[in-house]
């Protein structure tokens, strides 16, 4: 298997979800870095325990109304 893609999903609210598929370790970070750089400012980064790897989660910070 040698399919390496980056999947970027963008909601109608303008929220982003980036996922690197088929990458391992540092390659994964490298694959998405240019998009993070282009689309926003990295405000925080932290490592999650492996068991949360597949957890689906998204944080919404609704502002205004």
């Amino acid at each position, binding site marked *: 298997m040698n399919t390496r893609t980056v999947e970027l*999903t963008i909601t109608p609210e303008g929220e982003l979800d980036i996922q690197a598929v088929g990458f391992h370790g540092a390659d994964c970070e490298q694959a998405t870095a240019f998009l993070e750089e282009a689309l926003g400012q990295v405000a925080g980064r932290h490592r999650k325990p492996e068991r949360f790897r597949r957890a689906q989660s998204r944080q919404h910070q609704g502002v205004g109304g």
Partner: protein
Amino acid sequence: MPSRLGLPGSGWLAFNRQRSTIIKKMSHWTTIQTQIRDIVALRAACAELNLTVLENAEARGYGTNRHRGDYVIRLNGPYDIAVTRQADSSFTLLTDWWDGHVERQVGRNFGRLLQLYAVHKATHEARKRGLSVQRKLLQNGNIKLNIGRI
């Protein structure tokens, strides 16, 4: 007609770096805040929404209120969006949300505009690197970009 609360002009609301998203990346999670920094991508997003971008113009607000922007997104309703460059070279969006005029054209909190901005910015950056981009509109309104090697 709903009554307008507050003083004229109090409806101007700024947007800049207010949206945070958790990004999933293998076992890493990265919080990024979407920023508008590329006027070319913003123009492309506006073109897709059939909106015109003016340079160094005045945005129309409630009544006689006007707000000068480095750029102005001219909307079809009574109000516009002022786009102002900040010291860190990102852009702030400013508009009057009253009565849903602006929301109908660019989405709540500029959501639809930000969505298309991100689509065009990501597509441009990927192609610059010789990567292929496939764009797909999903039923729930999400846009998915598959970025890979050509």
